[in-house]
């Protein structure tokens, strides 16, 4: 009897292993492309960062000459704006990510309710994602220019900022709050949060969809139980809804960080260094350093949330 049981366990283990080996077959088509297109390009970027790259017009290629850590030294000690842009990008991310997560969770909960025209409203909140095409942004810029009477956006912005009475009263309000004793850091955060409302709403389309899907996968029996036990809406949110969407909060945090990083100033700096200044080595350093910093943030944040995440299955 005991022997039979042991045999069974052994057999099951090998079966499991065989099954898991089949997993590689499933991954294979994706993995080949991934290694060819992405891993190689990352490795090449690392290689560029240690070299000086010169274009060879005669042969039609490029030549690398070993520069060691020279590019890194230049980026950190000589380049005038890199460190500053890196810190602002990271700070922007730190401000934006929690706001986007809370906003999209809140919106998802609203959109998950039953009301007339729900489908339409959901579509509206997905619009920014759908209209994220180069030609559309160009056209919107063009129409914004037209709205300013032919003045380009930047000029209009500076002109507007110079004579803005609203900005003055905002400063006055902030001063008042500071003198009441509200920490200035918190006020700064809130002010920058308000300033970004438009960006935040525009950046949370995908997150809202993910949260809606997560909310709908919560079994209704849990809510039933909560109702029977006499839980209020508030309690139901914190004891049922929130723990159940926790795994998707991680998904969204990662998505948001990646999304906000790929449109950040650092990436812009890196690509302008490469394609307007033709300094590929330095550009590679910029993108590598900022990618490593972002990854470090990602790891810390995800670990922090993961420890507190509740997995239902």
């Amino acid at each position, binding site marked *: 009897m005991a022997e039979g049981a042991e045999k069974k366990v052994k057999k099951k283990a090998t079966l499991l292993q065989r099954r898991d080996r089949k997993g590689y077959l499933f991954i294979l088509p*994706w993995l080949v492309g991934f290694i060819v297109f992405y891993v190689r*390009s990352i490795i090449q970027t690392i290689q560029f960062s240690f070299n000086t790259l010169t274009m060879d017009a005669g042969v039609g290629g490029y030549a690398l000459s070993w520069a060691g850590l020279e590019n890194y030294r230049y980026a950190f000690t000589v380049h005038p704006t890199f460190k500053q842009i890196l810190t602002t990008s990271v700070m922007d991310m730190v401000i934006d990510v929690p706001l986007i997560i809370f906003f999209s969770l809140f919106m998802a909960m609203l959109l998950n309710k039953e009301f007339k025209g729900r489908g339409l409203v959901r579509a509206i909140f997905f619009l920014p994602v759908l209209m994220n095409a180069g030609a559309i942004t160009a056209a919107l810029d063009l*129409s914004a220019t037209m709205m300013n009477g032919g003045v380009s956006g930047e000029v209009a912005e500076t002109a507007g900022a110079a004579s803005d009475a609203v900005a003055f009263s905002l400063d006055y309000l902030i001063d008042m709050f500071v003198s009441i004793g509200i920490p200035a850091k918190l006020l700064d955060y809130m002010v920058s949060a308000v300033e970004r409302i438009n960006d935040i709403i525009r950046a949370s389309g995908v997150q809202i969809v993910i949260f809606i899907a997560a909310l709908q996968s919560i079994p209704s029996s849990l809510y039933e139980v909560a109702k029977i036990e006499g839980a209020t809406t508030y309690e139901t949110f914190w004891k049922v809804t929130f723990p159940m969407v926790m795994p998707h909060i991680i998904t969204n945090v990662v998505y948001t960080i990646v999304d906000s990083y790929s449109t950040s100033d650092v990436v812009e700096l890196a690509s302008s260094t490469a394609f307007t200044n033709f300094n590929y080595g330095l550009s590679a350093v910029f993108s590598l350093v900022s990618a490593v910093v972002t990854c470090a943030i990602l790891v810390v944040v995800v670990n922090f949330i993961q420890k507190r995440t509740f997995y239902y299955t």
Partner: protein
Amino acid sequence: MANVNPAARNDLTAAELKKAERAAKKEAKRVAKIQNKKKPKKGKEKRLNRSMAGNTILFTLMIICGLFMVLPLVMIINNCLKPLDELYQFPPKIFVRNPTLENFSDLFVLMNDSWVPFSRYILNTIIITLGGMLGHVICASLAAYPLAKHKFPGRDLLFSMVVLSMMFSWQVTQIPQYLIISWLGINNTYAALILPAWSFGMGLYLMKQFMEQLPDSLMESARLDGATEWTIFWKIVMPNVKPAWLTLAIFQFQQMWANTGSIFLRDEQLKPMQFALQQITAGGTRRAGAAAAVTFIIAAVPITFFLICQRNVLETMTTSGMKD
């Protein structure tokens, strides 16, 4: 004779089937009516939870946020109907006064003048968009299944590689990408745009996160019934994460649709519509009317695609598929 008989019987059964179907539809309607009658009652019960004032505040907030999002679209739609003098009106108006289709007829003139027949651009776009989207969704889902539900050596390493790779956006890896594409000899072909899209990390990441939520018991029961991994994937896993892969499809559709392919495609015959349209928009103020029409077309297609899929994405999220 023997051949005719079964056919006749089939006809008979078909007629019967139709009858039965009609009856079933009637029944379904009746049930739906009853359910619809019941629903408002349920709603009233729910409404007890939150005050009217609270609801009003929440929905006002939602409407304000929604206005932010819908404004660009409203502008695009109105702009494409404005005659030229209204486009340049200052101070500008959002809504059109004398709507015309002039802009579209201007655009068609421009299209007819193009170097390559315009239908060719459309065909290119269809090939690139569909190829990139389908390949991406299938490859990402296939790879996500073992990553989410199987344990094998190197799994965590692979997954962290995926997350790392998402950090290198295309702007900064353009040069290595170009080198790889030309090394593969697929430069100046559709494949240069389609193949890299297949193995992009984001899709895999999203699919894996959703598949992890599926209860193991679903797959176990399929295995007990003798299903192979392949069958489990197509018959159990994919239908259950339908919202996830449809979301991914919409997302990827948008990305491929917005792709101008200007880096890899040199032949005019291979370039997508997006490129041709962008050229028209780049005409600046002289072509503002045609550009407004272009913007409308570019925006309209992904939105239509989204509206088609939307019901499936957001309305039918299968609950875990289990009787708890």
